[in-house]
């Protein structure tokens, strides 16, 4: 008899969530992590002495509230500090602010466009309704529309009932969100360029599409599905960095009895007679279990850990065409002083409150499109889109006293860059980011003590995300819901008995949501 009921490959947040749920149900679970620490792309590292960074993913919002509740994550150390604003510096020296405080936000929008200020509440309500319409789907194993089994048929019927229950108007709005470009969708609501650009930027994150391409409106909605303490759309920063999200989940899993082993890289899934029996580690050790659950992305799981020869041809073909095309990079800066944005100086009048929020370099939709144009033909964006936060403003423990850390999410930096990623190109990306930032906050250049540039190739190398895609596979309509990762295999199972998937490459996708891990655990526990 194998010692374990389930082996989870990969201690990313989804693997840990899955482990925690299985362990809580009394299963004997072993999590195998290749690196020296758990967390995958949700981790904190002291990259430079005294400066701690959420090296990859850097904010929280989408983590499912039921997971926070079920696993009692606050008891295990999860503490989320809200980001209160987003400031978009404009090319004319002004800025556009979006604030959590409703009245302040409305006054600020009205300063730019009365019409947009009027429309904003209705827009918020509409997105709120759409997020609620999608919410029940997030926790569901997608039914297979091609299957005639009772379970799938009733799943499809339930889905149809759910959509019909939304009423015509909301169903049609949802249809539009699924099929439109974020720029076109926002054009129907707003006129201010910076507002449209900043909002449509949520629609391009992690994709290799521009804001004018259909399909991006859904990604925008995906980023609006966050819910913190019952408040929709709230974005926050985990105290101690995103590693503390993983640490809290790991702690919950261990408290429930799961075993976590780091420095234990899986080389192969053990397969005998069409069934997964365990894993072989890179050091040659064999560990057997009744079930193997892979938190790695679909290509890594099936092409590397399982191997084509154990899989049906058609399935292999589908996995091969599953698209990754990482397009995002991170630049992490250790700063000797706070950045001073010329559009909103941190002086006695303004105070420093705005530095506790995010800064978005997205002055216009055309700016984002031009950034995409570069990437489309294999170049890094000369003037990239950037989402900037200063975690040390919220959690001073992230940097030495008086000093700061800045986290910059950058797009586009295509994985398939012309000539491949080299050290020189990595630095060129870092320079493009710093130069662009310095146009809005000139003191930044002089304030940089250290700089870390993380390219898609680095993400792939370090965390194992294929092509550096932050969602374990593009979140496009043709790779969503019952098509994620491949048609007919979206219910966390695989063609191999005893092998499951629990990563963001499955429904509903990435963004430190944890839903894939939870859904996979539920699929496993519901299975006979």
């Amino acid at each position, binding site marked *: 008899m194998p010692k374990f009921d389930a082996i989870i490959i990969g201690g990313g947040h989804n693997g840990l969530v899955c482990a925690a749920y299985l362990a809580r149900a009394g299963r004997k679970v072993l999590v195998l992590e290749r690196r020296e620490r758990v967390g995958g792309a949700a981790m904190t590292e002291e990259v430079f002495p005294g400066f701690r960074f959420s090296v990859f993913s850097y904010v929280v919002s989408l983590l499912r509230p039921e997971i926070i509740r079920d696993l009692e994550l606050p008891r295990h150390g999860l503490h989320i500090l809200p980001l209160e604003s987003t400031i978009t510096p404009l090319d004319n020296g002004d800025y556009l602010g979006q604030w959590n405080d409703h009245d302040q936000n409305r006054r600020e929008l009205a300063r730019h466009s009365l019409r947009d200020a009027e429309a904003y509440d209705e827009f918020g309500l509409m997105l709120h309704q759409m997020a609620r319409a999608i919410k029940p789907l997030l926790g569901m194993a997608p039914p297979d*529309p*091609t*299957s005639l089994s009772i379970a799938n048929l009733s799943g*499809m*019927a339930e889905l*149809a009932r759910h*959509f*019909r229950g939304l009423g*015509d108007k909301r*169903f*049609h709005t949802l*249809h*539009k969100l*699924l*099929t*439109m*470009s974020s720029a*076109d969708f926002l*054009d*129907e609501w707003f006129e201010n360029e910076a507002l449209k650009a900043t909002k449509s930027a949520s629609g391009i994150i992690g994709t290799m*599409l521009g804001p*004018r*391409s*259909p*399909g*991006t409106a859904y990604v925008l909605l995906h980023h609006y599905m966050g819910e913190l303490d019952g408040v929709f759309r709230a974005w926050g920063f985990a105290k101690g960095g995103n590693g503390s999200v993983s640490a809290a989940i790991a702690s919950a899993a261990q408290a429930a009895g799961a075993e976590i082993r780091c420095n234990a890289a899986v080389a192969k899934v053990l397969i005998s007679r069409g069934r997964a029996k365990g894993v072989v580690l890179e050091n040659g050790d064999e560990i057997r279990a009744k079930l193997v659950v892979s938190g790695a992305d679909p290509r890594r799981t099936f092409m590397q850990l399982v191997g084509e020869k154990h899989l049906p041809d058609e399935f292999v073909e589908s996995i091969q*065409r599953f*698209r990754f095309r990482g397009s995002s990079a991170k630049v992490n800066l250790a700063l000797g002083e706070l950045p001073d944005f010329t559009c909103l100086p941190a002086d006695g009048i303004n105070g420093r409150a705005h530095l506790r929020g995010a800064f978005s370099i997205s002055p216009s939709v*055309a700016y984002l*499109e*031009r950034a995409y*144009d570069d990437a*489309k*033909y294999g170049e890094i964006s000369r003037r990239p889109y950037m989402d900037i936060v200063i975690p040390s403003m919220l959690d001073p423990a992230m940097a030495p006293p008086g000093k700061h850390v800045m986290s910059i999410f950058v797009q586009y930096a295509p994985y398939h860059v012309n000539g491949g990623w080299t050290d020189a190109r990595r630095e060129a990306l870092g320079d493009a980011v710093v130069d662009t930032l310095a146009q809005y906050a000139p003191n930044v250049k002089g304030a940089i003590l250290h700089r870390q540039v993380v390219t898609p190739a680095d993400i792939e190398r370090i965390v194992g995300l294929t092509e550096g895609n932050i969602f374990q596979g593009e979140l*496009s*309509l*043709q790779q969503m819901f*019952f*098509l994620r990762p491949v*048609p*007919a295999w979206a219910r966390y199972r695989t063609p191999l008995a005893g092998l499951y998937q629990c990563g963001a490459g499955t429904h509903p996708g990435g963004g430190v949501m944890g839903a894939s891990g939870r859904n996979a655990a539920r699929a496993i526990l519901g299975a006979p």
Partner: protein
Amino acid sequence: MNRTVVIGGGADALVVAQLLAAAGREVLVIEGGNAPEAEGWVPPQVLRALKLQGLELHWPDPWISVPLPAGGKLELWRDMARSVESIRRVSARDAERWPQFCRRVARLARFLEALYAEPPPDPLSTGFAWRARRLGGRGLEDLLRILPMPVAELLDDWFENDALKGALGGAGVLHLLQGPRSGGTAFRLLHHHVGCAPGVFRAPRSNVLELLRRLPRVELQGAAVQRVAVKAGAVAGVVLNDGRELEASMVVSSADPRRSLLEFVEPGWLDPELIRAVRHVRRRGVTARLRVQLDRSPGFGALAIAPSLDYLERAYDDAKHGGVSRQPYVEARCDERHRLDVHIQYAPHGADCSKLGDTVLAMLSEHWGDAAPREGELLSPQELAHAEGWPEGQAHHAELALDQALWMRPLPELARYRTPIAGLWMCGPAMHPGAGVAGAAGYNCAREILRR
């Protein structure tokens, strides 16, 4: 008075008019100034309903020729085996895959054909679910996956040759302000495949308009409509530009929705929310057209200058930022009298097209051998808007994209051809199934009218 006035002289308008007349209504067609052309497949349901005989669908054969960078042309024929031979010269792998690709997508086109010849389905109904299921597991998967895809991804999945992908990719972006790397463009490839044999991806031309105009029973009048008179929320008649007033209890308009609802009808009859939604219907024109008379045959029936997907995408990049493509996507068709009809993309509505004619002539002259142009005329999107009645130069009247297709076309509130004004109906390219399927919107609209 129990008269029906049909606005517009295109295939849709004539089909509605004939079907209503056949059902016993007195019908008058106000043709307007422009001379529409019938491009596209005619569903057999339309032919049967009108007992229309003598329809000729015409595709050039090869239906497309693509100049190759090393000289020579890639030719795609209506005959699969000949296409395979031609493709083999550029890629053995693509030649091998061509028949299978054609079969897979033809199956989806057949599914669309059935949907196109009836009013849009209710996507959440069990009936629709069962129909989709009849595609089989593989077919349904293909449908769900391919519709939202960028056409470039679909083609990259199957093929390696740039010229082949360019020729097919062109069909994904025809009349659309998107590039082949934009989502939803694979749907447009399927749309242009509807009614075609497997392996043919361009709509045919036909004599359907002539046939329709020859039918009796319906009075045709050349005049322009100024507005639709509405009394107590219901149609009372139409007022023509020359001031004449015609009484009518029903008006069917094949003009675009903005024109039909916001210009023909006086404001006040419609809900402001609907007015807002109608204003948001996207209809961005992107096409210019060049007509050239050559002194002899250019040596091709249909020629596409779209050497690669990147070429198309770069042409789109210019348009996305508001300009005319520096190196446009060009598709020329030649008739037996050596007249070239050239489709040019992208020329955004309102952009300066003054140099475009020369650019395109220079591009084409490399491919027409010894032929020499006698005369030529370029129509910008603004001129096409006027000549063809295409709003903002958009041939589909409302861009055919997944959010403006099927039950969403042009808006969910209007998708069943009815408007909130009693007696006012809409047909035409803005309605399901859109341009490129001649008479289908008219046929569907008539069915909805006669159902009541």
